[in-house]
Each structure stands twice: as structure tokens, then as C-alpha cells.
């Protein structure tokens, strides 16, 4: 178990280092002098030199990367070209908004996908199955930002139930947070949920066809017990796997949906940084989001050990 966890952690770490190389290289690929480009019309030699030195851009490439990596490891991601504030501070300011939105969206996705996927599999070939498959196909194809706009149209403009945009912190104003989070989280969550439904269905279908499911029926267990105790248990590993992988598209959806709903999270921060050519912020936020995705999938790997006794004892 410990060896398994260590091996997975090491693999994730290697990929993370690779990701940091890619993120670091991006900055080198910017045509021209990024500091100069970033300063644009605000250019003056003093600011330029100071920024360049603080960003370490006057040193050799390898040294730059190693020091970037070293600093990143201690939580120092450099300073914003725009505001001069530490990138880490900027990211941490935005993190709660994005994290609370992403987790809510994930929750909505799972609340849709698991019951619907199980129903579709258990009643394979029935009207429920066709409905779930159809909804899933639609979900894969619908742009979540369009869905968000349709929500605003319906629930803000027409019914006036929910605010069309904005944000309240979860721990500052819980009710306000709920009102604001419902639509963006539902837009992303419904789409992810529809995609996941398809995977849940096929995982459950596979588990239903297993010999142990027949054994469970042969013991005279009620169908509900067979499904909950045996079938779902067997389907859990693939379901957890795709949920972890689905997080990538969910995070992608969050970035865009933040713009639709003026949700002050990492997506907005990143996009503003891209538009303003604030490269350290772009780097930091891309690194943070990619690292989050990796860490979540590392956790998924570790969760296998909890779910599957065969891995636990290896």
C-alpha cells in the first residue's frame, strides 16, 4: 500500500516537473522581450530594469528554470508584471471562488450522473435508457457557456429568481453565495454530468454482467441490494477514474463560465493576464490548475486502494 502510494506520487511528481518545463518554456516562446511587451506604453528604463531583475530574466535559461522551479516549490511564483504583487497572493485571492464553484459543479455532475447512469444500465433497453443516452449525447455537444446564457435568460431575465452575475464569498454570505453559484455551477455541472452519465452507464452495465452479480442473485438477495452492494461496488473504480479525468473538462468549463457570470475566480484572472500579457500570472495560474488536476488524479489513484482490496494489499 505504502509502496503503491509512493510509486503513484513519484509518477505524478515527474509529470508535474514536465508540466513546469512546458509552462516555463511558454514564456521563452513569447516573441520579443516579454517584460518590454508587458510594460508597453508604461515603459521606462528604471521600471524595466527592476522588473527584469526581479523576474530573473537577465540570467541564463537553465539557471532561470531551476530558480523558477526552486521558487515555485516554496510557493513563490514571481511577481505580476502589471501590479507588481506576488503571483501567489493573486492566485490565493481567487482560489476560493473557483474552488467553491468547481466543487459545486462536480457535486451537481455526480448527482445527475450516478442515479441516471445506474437507472439506464439496470433498465437497459427501456425508455429510461434511451433518455439517459440521449441526454448524455446532448450534454457532450452543448457548449456550457451557451447553457449559462440560456439560464440567465430564463432565471434572471424572465423569472427574476436569480442574479445574472456576480459573487459572494461562501463564508461571508452563504445565502448570497448559493444564489450566485447555482447557475454557473449548474451550467458546467449539467454538461459534465451528462458526459459522466454515459460512463456510469457502461461501468454499471459491465458490472451487471459479471459472474458475482449472478451469484448475488442466486443467493436470493433483493434486486436493490444486489445493485447497491455488488453492482455499484464493482462499478466504482471505473466511475471514480472517469470522474477524475472529467475534472479536466470541468475546469476548462469553469474558466469560460466565470467570464459569463463575472465570477471573480482563476479563470478571469488568467484571461485578464493573457489579454494584458502578464506572463508570470499566466504561468502561475496554468501551473496551479494543471497541478490541481494532477493532484486530484493522484488522489483518485490512492482512492483505488480504498475501493479495491486487491490493490490495498499488494
Amino acid at each position, binding site marked *: 500500500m505504502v509502496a503503491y502510494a509512493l510509486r503513484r506520487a513519484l*509518477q505524478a511528481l515527474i*509529470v*508535474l516537473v*514536465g*508540466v513546469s*518545463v*512546458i*509552462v516555463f518554456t*511558454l*514564456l521563452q*516562446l*513569447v516573441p520579443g522581450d516579454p517584460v518590454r511587451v508587458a510594460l508597453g506604453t508604461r515603459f521606462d528604463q528604471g521600471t524595466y530594469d527592476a522588473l527584469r531583475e526581479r523576474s530573473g530574466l537577465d540570467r541564463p535559461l537553465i539557471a532561470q528554470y531551476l530558480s523558477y522551479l526552486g521558487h515555485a516549490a516554496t510557493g513563490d511564483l514571481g511577481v505580476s508584471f502589471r501590479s507588481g504583487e506576488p503571483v501567489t497572493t493573486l492566485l490565493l485571492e481567487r482560489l476560493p471562488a473557483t474552488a467553491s464553484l468547481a466543487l459545486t459543479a462536480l457535486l451537481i455532475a455526480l448527482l445527475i450522473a450516478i442515479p441516471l447512469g445506474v437507472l439506464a444500465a439496470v433498465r437497459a*433497453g427501456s425508455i429510461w435508457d434511451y433518455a439517459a443516452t440521449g441526454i448524455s*449525447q*446532448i450534454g*457532450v*455537444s*452543448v*457548449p456550457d*457557456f*451557451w447553457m449559462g*446564457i*440560456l439560464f*440567465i*435568460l430564463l432565471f*434572471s*431575465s424572465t423569472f427574476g429568481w436569480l442574479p*445574472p452575475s456576480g459573487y459572494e464569498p461562501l463564508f461571508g454570505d452563504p445565502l448570497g453565495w448559493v444564489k450566485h453559484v447555482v447557475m454557473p455551477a449548474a451550467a458546467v455541472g449539467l454538461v459534465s454530468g451528462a458526459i459522466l452519465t454515459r*460512463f456510469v452507464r*457502461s461501468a454499471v452495465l*459491465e458490472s451487471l454482467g459479471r459472474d458475482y452479480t449472478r451469484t448475488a442473485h442466486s443467493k436470493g438477495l433483493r434486486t436493490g441490494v444486489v445493485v447497491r452492494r455488488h453492482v455499484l461496488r464493482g462499478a466504482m*473504480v*471505473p466511475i471514480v*477514474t*472517469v470522474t477524475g*479525468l472529467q*475534472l*479536466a*473538462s470541468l*475546469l*476548462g*468549463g469553469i*474558466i*469560460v463560465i466565470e*467570464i*459569463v457570470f463575472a465570477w471573480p475566480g482563476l479563470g478571469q484572472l*488568467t*484571461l485578464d*493576464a*493573457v*489579454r494584458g*500579457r502578464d*506572463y508570470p500570472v*499566466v504561468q502561475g495560474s*496554468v501551473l496551479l*490548475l*494543471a497541478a490541481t*488536476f*494532477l493532484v486530484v488524479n493522484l488522489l483518485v*489513484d490512492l482512492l483505488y486502494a480504498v475501493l479495491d482490496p486487491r490493490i490495498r494489499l499488494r
Partner: protein
Amino acid sequence: MRALISHRFALVCLVILAMMALAGVFGAALAPYGVNATDIPGRLRPPSLEHWFGTDELGRDVFSRVLAAAGVSLKVGLIAVGISLFAGVLIGLLAGYYGRFIDDALMRVMDMLFAFPAVLLAIAILAVLGPGVTNAMIAIGVVYVPIFARVTRAGVLAVREEIFVLAARSVGAGDLRIMASHVLPNVAGPVIVQTSLSLAFAILSEAALSFLGLGVQPPAPSWGRMLFDGRDFVQQAWWMGFFPGLAIFVTVLSFNIVGDALRDALDPAQRSAIEARSSERAAR
């Protein structure tokens, strides 16, 4: 039963895609109004017989713009997937055929690219290259290279052993010839299926990037950008955002359904994505 229904759907979708392609090629000519013809007094008009999809904040005909944008979307999608297809198949072939160090090195890079959420990677690439249609194609193309590389490599690995027997027999056949005549046909099925599904993703990504202002630049029409403008006028003019979104949805849905039907037809042995993914993880 299921197969029959999905085939009928797939046919309908092919017709829709053909119409989209026609709109893409002749869109500007078919459009009842000029794509950028403004009409300030007639701005924000709801859908009517003259303006089927209404008019936008500058009085431009939304229907004409949706029609004209079909071409941009399809072009970005096709070229982006073309880039992924070419690079991905090449990398997959090299990795699968030569194995060992080359395989390790190439596939590890692919793993790293795969570690980014797709939209995020595209945004990061556009941050470097700068916004624009061409760069958006490149960015989307790069994002989907790993999928094609993996699909191709899997197909190559399946035949490699047989191929070496063949190669030993046919003295003098070079690697290139073996790849072209024996390996490629074996991977064609899965790659074709992946192409159709990737077109759907690519069009969705282009719309997202244009929505964020990183793809197609105004005043050129694009579904994503029209949606962005529509968001600001959602209270006064729902049609500005509704119809471009519908166009994206229908196009992407069509590619997805055609892709699924192709999978059924060409690649029946292909394991469900879920199995492939979980076993892949277990193997790591």
C-alpha cells in the same frame, strides 16, 4: 434497434453537416444581408420574416452572420484536427513502431500535454502566440495531438509483431514502406472515428476561445464571439445569443453522432472508452 435508430440519426446528421459545409462555402453569397451591413435604426429587432434570427446591437442580420460563421468554424475545426491528425499519427507511428527509447520519450511528452485541461492549454498557447484565428487553430491542434498519438500507437502495437515477421520475409522492404502498407491500414479505423469526435471537440473549443476573445477577431463573424456579444444583451435581445449557440450545438451534436455511428461501423472491437481509460491507469 439501437443501432438502427443511431444510423438513422447519423444520416440526418450527415445531411445537416453537408448543409453546414455548403453554408460555409457559399454562406456569404446565400446570406440575405451583408455580414457586416449595419443598420443602426433597425438594431436589436426580434426574429421576424425579414430577419429570421433578429438583428444585433449594430442592426446586423443575425441569420446572415450565423450562416457566414459556419465557414469559419468548420475551417478552424478541420485545420486544427488536421494538425492533430498529422502530428499525432506521426508521433504514434514512431513511438509504436520503434518502441524503446523513442516510445518512452515521445509518450512521456504526450502524457505531460495530456496533464493540462484542454481549454487551459489552448489559452496558455494563445497567451504566447497572441489571439487570432490562425493561432487558435494551432493551439487547438496541439491540444488534441496526444489523443491521436495514443490511438495510433495502440493500433501499431497490435500489429507490430506480425509486421516484423513480414518485414523479415520481404527482404529489402524499408520501414517507411512497411508502415505505409501494413501499419497504417490497421490504425485507420480508430483514427477515422477519433477524427470525427475531435472535430466536435475542436469546434466547441474554437467557440470557447472566440467567446473569450482569443480566437476569431471581430468584426469577422464567429459563433463564439456572437455568443459573447449576446451575453451582454441577454436582457434585451435573447436571439443574439440563442441562435449562434444553437448553431454550435447542432454542429457539434452532428459530429458526435456521426463519430459514434462510425465507431459502430468501423471499430466494433474497440473497447469502451471507460475500459481503455481504467486499464490504462492500472497499467501505469
